[in-house]
């Protein structure tokens, strides 16, 4: 479904992603872990068109995405739940969800399904998004992304700044999506949790893929995990 070949990303002449290859099949859940500045977010940005790869190719369902505008890529079915959530703060929860409907038509049934999936959003539908707690905003951001009916859901640090109990809740919700066969690309800091949650993981370090493997392989490969855990700046 998604394929990256030799992707490099540079900002102002400084290359932060040196070479990343990645393949993601339909229904698969892929995790990306690695220390700060490893280039994880940059890889996500290059997929959704927020930064153009300086070389290499990003393909989605056979179509080359390089140089395509972010909104066009979103319409092809790639949704990003950004780090820091970025909900529309001065709009209500219901209005935020309405923004997620890509084709602009109001689909009450779809919103209703989101309310069922995220009951807290129904409770707070009329409130401004900036009144929501961090965990509620995260649910809103995910629901908003899902309303566009994405074929691929990308999440950048969904647990950032959340209380331990809230992280559990978010991951329960994500597990539900996983069981339904949603294709996901997940970037996280908590290596243990990510390896447990995903079918496969890539370990990024200094802009290249240091290791990759299935859940069981990585869990046993203590060297990789240790390198990651100890991997400071």
């Amino acid at each position, binding site marked *: 479904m998604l394929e990256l070949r030799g992707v490099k990303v540079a900002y102002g002449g400084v290359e932060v992603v040196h070479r990343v290859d990645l393949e993601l099949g339909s229904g698969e859940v892929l995790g990306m872990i690695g220390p700060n500045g490893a280039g994880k977010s940059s890889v996500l940005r290059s997929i959704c068109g927020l930064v153009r790869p300086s070389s290499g190719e990003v393909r989605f369902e056979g179509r080359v995405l390089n140089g395509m505008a972010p909104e066009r890529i979103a319409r092809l079915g790639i949704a990003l739940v950004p780090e820091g959530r970025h909900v529309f703060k001065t709009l209500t929860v219901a209005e935020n969800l309405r923004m997620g409907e890509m084709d602009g038509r109001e689909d009450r049934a779809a919103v209703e399904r989101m309310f069922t999936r995220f009951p807290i959003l129904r409770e707070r539908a009329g409130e401004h998004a900036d009144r*929501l707690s961090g965990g509620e905003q995260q649910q809103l951001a995910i629901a908003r992304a899902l309303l566009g009916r994405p074929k691929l859901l990308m999440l950048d*640090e969904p647990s950032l700044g959340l*209380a331990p109990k809230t992280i559990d809740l978010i991951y329960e919700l994500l597990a539900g999506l996983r069981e339904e066969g949603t294709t996901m690309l997940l970037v996280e800091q908590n290596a243990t949790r990510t390896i447990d949650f995903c079918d496969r993981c890539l370990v990024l370090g200094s802009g290249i893929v240091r290791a990759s493997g299935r859940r069981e392989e990585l869990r046993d490969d203590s060297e990789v995990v240790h390198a990651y855990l100890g991997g400071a700046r």
Partner: protein
Amino acid sequence: MSAAGLRTRRSVAVSLLIPLVLIAATALVGVNGTPSLRGTVITILSNMVIVLGLQVFIGNSGVYSFGQLGFAAAGAYVAAFLTLPAAFTALQVPGLPDLIANAQLGPLPSTLIAAIACGLLAAVVGLPLMRTSTLAVPISTFAFLIVVYNVLANWEEVTGGVSGLVSIPRTTSIESAALWASVAVVVALAFKWSASGYRLQATREDEVAARSLGISVNGERLLAFALSGVLCGVGGALAVHQSGVLNPATFYFAATVTTVTMMVLGGARSVFGAVLGTVALSTVNEILRNVEGGASVLGVVSIGNTPGLAAIGVGLILLATMIAMPDGISGGREAGELPWPRRLRRARAAALPALSGAAPTEKVPREGELRAEGISVAFGGLRVLRSVDLTLRRGEALGLIGPNGAGKTTLVNVLSGFLVPDSGTVSLDGVDVSGRSPSRLARAGLSRTFQSALPFPHLSCLESVAVGAMGVGVGRRRAVATAAEVLDRLDLRQLSSAPAGSLPPAGQRLLGVARALATRPHYLLLDEPAAGLSEGEGEQLVEILGGVLDDFGCGILLIEHEMSVVMSLCPRVQVIDDGTTLRVGSPTEVQADPAVVEAYLGSSYPVAIGA
């Protein structure tokens, strides 16, 4: 001018020399030219002084003022009054007081008096205007420009009304204009690199973060506004002594648009950009104006009379620049910061001042506490905090945890002065500080960081941290030494010269800690510093903060969801839930409390923190 540790001598020299060379080159073009060309060059140079005036305020504060040409107008009129021969004065402006009317000064004293008068006028006008919000300043300064125009146009007895003044001595030479432009470059650069200039730039980069570091936003803006008024006054005086005529429309809409365009075209954040933008736009304007009257290009294509071509051309250039180079031709950088050929660049990196980390680590006396009592806050009908108490002693690390939305950040906002509570008091070392502004609290020894880092993206990491010290009144040289020491302590030294905006979010959060530490706080409030750090990096942070406790002796209040960080750093933890204190105790007590597990940690907690 000394580098004072923030840039190399070479970088300073290049930043200063290139604009001066550009001025000299412009002057040389005119010296040997026709009288008309000489006039054009003098106009360019006097415009340059005004554009540098704009840069001093707009470039450093990031706040657009459309009123600065009002000061140029004031400067021009003052200079004209002081130099007009008495006979002409009596004829044209009979209402002028005798003292001014009879004065017949030379170009230099009249320009200096115009400069001082405009500086004072700007200070007086700025006093109320700088109190308005960032968004209101452009509108209120524009209103000021309109007021100036209408006073000049209607107070005929004193100003000559719309028909203006004639027969003003034409004393501005290319040499004197070039000299004034050079002085303006030196003044603008010296200001930009002064402690005050850095504080102002910090408010441009992020107003909230600047206030948290003790910086008075209005005060810094006012100072730059007045200095800008001085330069604009000089520019106006030079211009009027070039043209010999003056009317209220000389420095109005058109001149405002032209000069602001020059600054933006060159790159507003940079003094070099102001010089470059003035020369570039003037040159294009001159060429187009010649073509306007009919010309042939390379003798092949002939263009007929095309009035308005210059204006359209300038508009298109501005549009194209904004699309292709949003930071202007200079990219907002000084000449010494541009990517010159590699040889020079490497020299710059290598020669970055070898600062010793031996700056004084003055330990904070360990007595005293930050105390909040009965704090209640409601947003509309939503009660966020309900009578919360908190005590933070110096030299102690207190963890503050609780579910998202429990009110932790609101409490920090109250403690740091960003939010006035509905009830309750905050005291610092026994002194009631309730209702004090964030900048005053920062100067009293209370510093904080923010969840979203709020970096100063266009300042280097070293500059960002140095601004922290400058914010509480430390001079530039000592501020840089402090910054170098703090960066060392936090293991960020290798990033000194990197722009703060280039760091990943977690790095920016750590830089925020460094920035807050540079204020030498007695109490440091950290809002989720470990968010986005990997597990290994979290351990490093604990080590660093432990060192800070030992070396600096300040009290640390730590809001954090990363339990491994909280539990290993803080001997005392306060749990807040739904706006009230649920529990205060040791990590062991808190983690064992069923109510805390239920409200916050969750049943899978031991698993969640990992091994």
